[in-house]
């Protein structure tokens, strides 16, 4: 009942194409999360599904019906808006029960559902307040409540937890998942919170500049990103990228080399320009290398900045390849594809590393991703044993 299908959906505004030839096929009861950088078209995609924006091209099908030009009210959806948009002239109770009252639910049922939602959202004492007497997070919860009391076939949620604190988010996450299971509705969810995306979704759809980059289960996106963009986007802090070229039996970069077995990894063609990707947690101080089955050779580096996070410490490394670059480009956190001389490593919080220390690190060779520098597409995700993978967008292909 809640399958959602987007075919070649494109939405153009005066000077931008917000969504470009989007194809999505979401199954009934699935929980799909849209992620992507700010302005990539996530909200616009939701709006086309909701019927608030008519796509410039393409068709949208919900539960088998072509609803492309149908008004929102005939689509059996509920939506949490990114801009919250509570009705200023109604109190919390009325805001939440709006959709139910429209459908002439009897007032007992309404009260029951509103009460239940208020409880889930921990806003029981606020039901009589007006929106302008609420804090930001309280407003957002009311907006969620307004959607969940409805129990529709499809939920669209646009960053519904953005203004909530970590505790509440975790709580809401669980509640939403429970709701999802209970009602068996399709949920299309937008978030910029990786943890949310990873833990809640059946599949993640990664978008960039209006294009779908990959749609796949969370761990697939994490472990086998379809291209440089997905690799850099999923995971926080992002994957380290180092450019290099494929030689006979190794990939050579400015700061280090990574050996591989050409027989196992036929995709790596000698002479190709490739980008090596490795996540911070797959970089280890050489001292801990014994844990690893397949470390690379040791790489000389100098610690630049240490960022303690409580449960881990991020260490910004400057590679000291032939001649180490100066330290002043140091603190730029976004290490994505910034060239060969930076590397971010995450270590246990009890590590005794200090600033400006010369150390050696190794990478976990099993966790090294290789991308074609030209197209950005993934070449292989395991330099030891190549798995069968198609060409460009493995995830995306799989779906269309």
């Amino acid at each position: 009942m809640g399958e959602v299908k987007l075919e070649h959906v494109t939405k153009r505004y005066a000077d931008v194409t917000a969504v470009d030839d989007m194809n999505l096929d979401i199954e009934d009861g699935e929980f799909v999360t849209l992620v992507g950088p700010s302005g990539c078209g996530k909200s616009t995609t939701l709006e086309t599904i909701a019927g608030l924006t008519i796509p410039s091209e393409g068709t949208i099908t919900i539960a088998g019906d072509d609803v492309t030009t149908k008004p929102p009210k005939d689509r059996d959806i509920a939506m949490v808006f990114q801009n919250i948009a509570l009705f200023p002239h109604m109190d919390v109770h009325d805001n939440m029960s709006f959709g139910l009252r429209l459908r002439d639910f009897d007032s007992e049922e309404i009260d029951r559902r509103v009460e239940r939602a208020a409880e889930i959202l921990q806003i029981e004492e606020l039901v009589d307040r007006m929106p302008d007497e609420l804090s930001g997070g309280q407003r957002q919860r009311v907006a969620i409540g307004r959607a969940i009391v409805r129990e529709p076939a499809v939920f669209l949620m646009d960053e519904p937890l953005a203004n909530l604190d970590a505790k509440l988010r975790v709580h809401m996450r669980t509640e939403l998942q429970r709701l999802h299971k209970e009602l068996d509705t399709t949920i299309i969810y937008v978030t910029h919170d990786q943890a949310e995306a990873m833990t809640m979704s059946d599949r993640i759809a990664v978008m960039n500049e209006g294009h779908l980059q990959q749609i796949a289960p969370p761990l697939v996106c994490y472990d086998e990103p379809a291209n440089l963009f997905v690799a850099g986007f999923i995971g926080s802090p992002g994957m380290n990228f180092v450019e290099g070229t494929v030689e006979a039996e190794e990939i050579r970069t400015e700061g280090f080399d990574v050996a591989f077995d050409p027989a196992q990894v036929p995709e790596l063609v000698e002479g190709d320009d490739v980008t090596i990707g490795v996540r911070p947690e797959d970089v280890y101080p050489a001292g801990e290398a014994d844990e690893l089955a397949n470390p690379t050779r040791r790489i000389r580096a100098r610690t630049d900045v240490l960022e303690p996070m409580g449960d881990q410490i991020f260490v910004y490394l400057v590679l000291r390849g032939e001649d180490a670059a100066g330290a002043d480009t140091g603190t730029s956190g976004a290490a994505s594809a910034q060239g060969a001389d930076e590397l971010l490593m995450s270590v246990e919080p009890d590590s005794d590393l200090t600033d400006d220390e010369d150390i050696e690190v190794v990478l976990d060779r099993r966790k090294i991703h290789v991308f074609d520098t030209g197209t950005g597409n993934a070449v292989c995700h395991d330099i030891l044993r190549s798995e069968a993978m198609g060409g460009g967008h493995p995830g995306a292909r799989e779906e269309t």
Partner: protein
Amino acid sequence: MATSDERGRGRLRSAAVAPANWTERLSEQGFAYVLLLPTLLLVSTMALWPLVSTFEMSLRADALFSAEYVGEFVGFENYVELLTGERNAILGSPFLDFSQPFQSALTVTLIYVAIAVTLETIIGFGQALVLDQSFRGRRWVRVAILIPWAVPIAIQGLIFWLFFQPGIGVGTDVMRYLGIFSENPLINTTDTLIIVIVADVWKTSAFMALLILAGLQSVDRSLYDVAKVAGASKIQQFRYITFPLVLPALLVALLFRTIQSMRVYGIIETTGGCSTLPSLTCLVVSTFRSGRYATSAAVAFITAGIVALVAMVYIVKFADLEVGT
């Protein structure tokens, strides 16, 4: 950035040190009074003072034989005599005479107000809703719908008077053919009432439309998105979002339209005339015209009193709204 910092900072500092705008230091209450000062000044000299002095006139006798406006002080005699009907002959038409509702100013005015304002509200709302949409040529439709309001009452009256004037316009023939009007609509109270109401609705629906349109335009459009997604049909969107949110503007429009039409005069005078359709203001003007300034002043105050009673209905509603939000 660092280099220009100093400059920016320097300026900023001086801006902060510069003598602060004195109004900013006032309490909210003090500031409110300062803001209201021009209003109070203007209103008290140009409106309140004249009213006081007119009220003073209303407590005096008419002075038909002197170059003075009014005669000796008589207290509330004018009011008493007016309300007891002793002055009916002078008024031209009585204030309130239940035996002939269409000849007594209060009933005529109330009937007119009730019908005209109701129609104007409905039509004005309809027009505003049309103008709120977007369609090709909307700009011109908007002008077309709004310009009747721009027509001076003298012309508005002229149009309708000529249209129904036998020998000149064909309006009477048409209406008689339809069986609606009598042979001489402009001397027939009910026909004239209809003409005046039509003329008034034609002109002042635009007033309502304009104000309501402004109200509609101020509604945050994203609320409609929410409502749509919540499943609201067009009508439900109107009922739950549009209407409550334009209600304040609508109330202002209604309030002022009601007050204005309680004071209806010009359109009557220029069509059927005050003796065919006497309104409250007709009495004020006719006594004024015949030089009975004291009586006229008293009638004006009585009229204002009646208007105040009617306006009370809205004010109570307003108070509700204020409390509600």
